């Protein structure tokens, strides 16, 4: 039915099967869209956020998708700037995942703000001292970069590529992609960092505040580093999921091993820095403001030491070790465990750096603030996931995303 659009020589499921799959996920997406419209038309009272908990579930989701979307910029950086050529086999997919993550992030921001129609004031009336301004600018610009990186892949669709202009455009864009990738890396460095800065500069919040370098608190660098470290984990995880669902091998092991190895090094170096940061914060920064470390992790039903141990040891040190060690890295099971833990770890880090900050009381007579998201928040947080699945399904079906797919999936007769 849609075979004319499917890349040449690729094997895809039947259109009805595809349509049914899409419509199931689409229903979830529609639920999210409904919740999104409720938030827009009725206002943020649809959520369970409050004046203590001004950032909530979806802002965590926002930071988390940006963090895991870091795979795109880091892979791009490696591929185009450091010329790690093997990565060309996964770069398309990394870009698509990045595109999904960043478009989701922007969508979430559009739902999250109380006055979406005035959202552009962040650009127009920019306060250059605010980390959030930096985030907004770099995020939008980097999203433009991702779009630019995504376009050639779209134009390589069988039908699109028949249009000569599109063909040439794709070709030419590949030619100068290194410049875009470099700009993207620059922008990404800053907005990932600024997101970390968002928390680190809140000097009214001893749980968040960090000392740092010039105007940048340490969280600025930690966020960039962690996005670069864990982003590839997410790329690999989604690749693995895609392979399982399609029942096909899509990327060669050597590519996966390489990315996993790089990620392992990044995670390990990151987690060392994170541990130093945490110790310094717990031993020096917080006590200088009158806080014992136990203040942040006790006296409430949710935020215990477990969250610190899970984030740093189980989801940081452990995956770092598993990916550095050649045997565990190349063992599909331990590698999968490592990348899943890594993804959880970075998401947990973002949770802590957004939500635990809000929950911790600062005034001596204040109390812990805990909250449970409303269904509207859950639905709008699930929306990007559904949207991501749909977009990956469509791009996988119609675009030559994986250059090695044909080679890896030769009909048996040819072997």
């Amino acid at each position: 039915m849609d075979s004319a659009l499917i890349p040449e020589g690729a094997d895809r499921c039947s259109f009805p099967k595809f349509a049914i799959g899409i419509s199931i996920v689409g229903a979830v997406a529609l639920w999210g869209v409904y919740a999104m419209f409720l938030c827009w038309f009725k206002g943020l009272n649809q959520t369970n956020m409050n004046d203590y908990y001004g950032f909530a579930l979806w802002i965590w989701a926002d930071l988390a998708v940006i963090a895991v979307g870091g795979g795109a910029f880091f892979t791009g950086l490696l591929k185009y700037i450091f010329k790690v050529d093997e990565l060309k086999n996964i770069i398309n997919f990394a870009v698509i995942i990045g595109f999904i993550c960043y478009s989701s992030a922007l969508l979430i921001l559009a739902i999250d703000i109380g006055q979406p129609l005035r959202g552009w004031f962040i650009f127009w009336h920019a306060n250059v001292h605010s980390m959030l301004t930096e985030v907004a600018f770099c995020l939008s610009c980097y999203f433009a970069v991702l779009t630019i990186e995504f376009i050639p892949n779209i134009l390589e669709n069988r039908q699109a590529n028949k249009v000569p202009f599109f063909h040439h455009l794709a070709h030419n864009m590949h030619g100068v992609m290194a410049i875009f990738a470099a700009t993207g890396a620059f922008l990404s460095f800053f907005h990932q960092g600024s997101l970390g800065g968002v928390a680190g500069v809140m000097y009214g919040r001893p749980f968040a505040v960090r000392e740092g370098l010039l105007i940048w608190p340490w969280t600025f660098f930690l966020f960039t580093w962690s996005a670069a470290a864990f982003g590839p984990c997410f790329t690999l995880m989604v690749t693995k999921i895609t392979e399982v669902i399609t029942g096909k091998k899509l990327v060669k092991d050597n590519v996966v091993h390489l990315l996993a190895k790089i990620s392992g090094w990044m995670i390990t170096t990151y987690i060392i820095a994170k541990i130093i940061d945490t110790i310094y914060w717990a031993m020096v920064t917080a006590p200088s403001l009158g806080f014992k470390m136990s203040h942040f992790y006790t006296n409430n039903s949710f935020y215990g030491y477990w969250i610190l141990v899970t984030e740093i040891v189980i989801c940081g040190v452990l995956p770092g070790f598993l990916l550095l060690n050649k045997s565990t890295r190349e063992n599909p099971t331990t590698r999968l465990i490592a990348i899943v833990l890594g993804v959880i770890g970075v998401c947990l880090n973002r949770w802590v750096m957004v939500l635990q900050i809000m929950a911790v009381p600062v005034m001596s007579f204040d109390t812990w603030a805990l909250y449970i998201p409303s269904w509207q928040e859950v639905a709008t947080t699930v929306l990007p996931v559904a949207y991501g699945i749909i977009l990956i399904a469509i791009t996988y079906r119609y675009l030559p995303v994986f250059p090695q797919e044909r080679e890896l999936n030769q009909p048996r007769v040819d072997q």
Partner: protein
Amino acid sequence: MFPFNFEWVWDTAHIIFMGGLWYAISILGAGMAYVIVKAAMDTMNDKGESHH
């Protein structure tokens, strides 16, 4: 964002921040303009000789 917005100040912070921003935007803009023009020219050149 622009010097005519009233909160704009000609200070180091604005120069560094906005400088970086406009620099990035210019590169992206110029790059895209270049590839589009180049692609248009290539398409026109194709008309004479059949490329495929």
